[in-house]
């Protein structure tokens, strides 16, 4: 599903963000990407979602060579991905239902199907009773559920989660990981989760890739956070 082969990334300011990273993630895998600030985690996300192109090497997602993708093809490619952010990025003036529906509307999904799909997705993340609530009326955990619902509304093949529990207390963080595991299990969605949360990585053990200074320093199938 995701293949990185000898990927180097040097930004215009001369920063070497990635130095020869190679890894393969299969369809349906749940993978943590850990590492200190500046280790290259965010660069991997940006390469996968097509925001950046590798300086050298291959980035392939769902059979698409992302680095060589033409600009005009990037939006269509992104419909294969869902992204969840640490700060939720919800539209405050829209209800829960409208926030989820928004992701479907802007890719021109037919109205009736889009509304049905938005309702189903909200139910999947346990927000059926909050459809008409606005983000400010929800807890942090609930807001992140909305963000997840929006990210999976288009039924993406890959779900990228950038520190999804960073703003949540441990109990809410656990609920979110449980939800992501459920999505991974039920829809076979590949999940790539960037995190600093040692507790989560150790309690919900999954394949864990550790980065440091742009190098891949460990790739443990058994998971767990090693200092």
């Amino acid at each position: 599903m995701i293949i990185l082969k000898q990927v180097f990334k040097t930004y215009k300011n001369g920063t070497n963000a990635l130095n020869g990273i190679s890894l393969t993630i299969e369809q349906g895998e749940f993978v943590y990407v850990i590492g200190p600030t500046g280790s290259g985690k965010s660069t991997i996300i940006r390469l996968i979602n097509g925001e950046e192109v590798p300086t050298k090497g291959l980035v392939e997602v769902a059979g698409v060579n992302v680095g060589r993708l033409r600009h005009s093809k990037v939006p269509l490619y992104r419909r294969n991905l869902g992204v969840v952010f640490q700060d939720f990025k919800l539209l405050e003036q829209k209800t829960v239902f409208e926030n989820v529906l928004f992701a479907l509307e802007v890719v021109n999904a037919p109205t009736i199907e889009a509304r049905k799909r938005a309702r189903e997705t909200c139910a999947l993340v346990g927000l059926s009773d909050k459809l008409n609530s606005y983000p400010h009326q929800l807890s942090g955990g609930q807001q992140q559920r909305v963000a997840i619902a929006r990210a999976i509304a288009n039924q993406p093949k890959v779900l990228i989660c950038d520190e999804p529990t960073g703003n949540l207390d441990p109990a809410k963080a656990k609920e979110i990981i449980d939800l992501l595991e459920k999505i991974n299990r039920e829809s076979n969605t590949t999940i790539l989760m960037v995190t600093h949360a040692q507790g989560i990585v150790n309690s919900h053990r999954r394949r864990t890739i550790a980065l440091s200074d742009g190098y891949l320093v460990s790739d443990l199938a058994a998971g767990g956070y090693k200092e």
Partner: protein
Amino acid sequence: MRRIFRHIKEAFIGLLRHLAMTLSSISTITITLLFVGLFLLITFNIEQFTYAVEGSVNIHVKVDPSFEDDASVNSLGVKIRALNGVRAATFSSKDNELDAMIESFGENGSIFESYRGEDNPLRMAYLVEIVDGADIESVAVSIRELEGVEAVAYGGIRVVELLSLLENTRQFVYILVAGLGLIAVFLIANTIKLSIASRGLEISIMRTVGATNGFIRTPFLFEGLLIGLFGSILPIGLIAIGYIWMFDTMGGQFITPMFALVNPFPFIYYVSVAMLLIAMGVGLFGSGLSVGKHLRWKR
């Protein structure tokens, strides 16, 4: 179609979100368009006046009595017609001249009837039509220098001066329109810039979930179009009603019957459509500038 309605809805939301900027952009369009309308009215009327004047600015050339034989008169006609700026030269006999004189005196003209025949003291003449009213003076000088010409007279110099005044007014309005148009474009571009900035989160989410760049840009272009549309309503109304009122009040003429004003129908419809298109064009151009700068295609 559903997509277009969505874009228009989003454009309205954007306009309402920055009501103050929207209103200032609309006001600028309104003022600009008032002058555009004025410019169009003046331009088309000047064109009509010029057309009327061109047919009436003639030079009256009196033939010297010692050159009244057929050969000399014909030769003079050929020389006049050969001059630059002369469209036509029509010979007028002494009798024709007397007729014209009698006619110009109206009811009292008949007293000149006694001069008809051998006693006619008038001169043979050529009525010279010129190509461009502005050249009347130089053409008259050239004719005066020809052999066999006794005198040259022309009316219409005032008319030419008036036309030149109107032309200057038109050019002044033109410069005003260009300046105001630039301000309108600048204000619209700024309104759209604010709109784009306030929707930063929405735009980033749209990009993340795979909305195309065209889809992201279109509502902002519609915003510009709507600013133009709303800005054009008042000036189109004022110009149309104002022109019809002026036409009726002035009896369809400007100062003299020679300057017949362009009939308001269908003229005013054309002017209105032109104003609407210009307003929407300026709106689209302003928003296009902002969209091009702040929503540049990136990955």
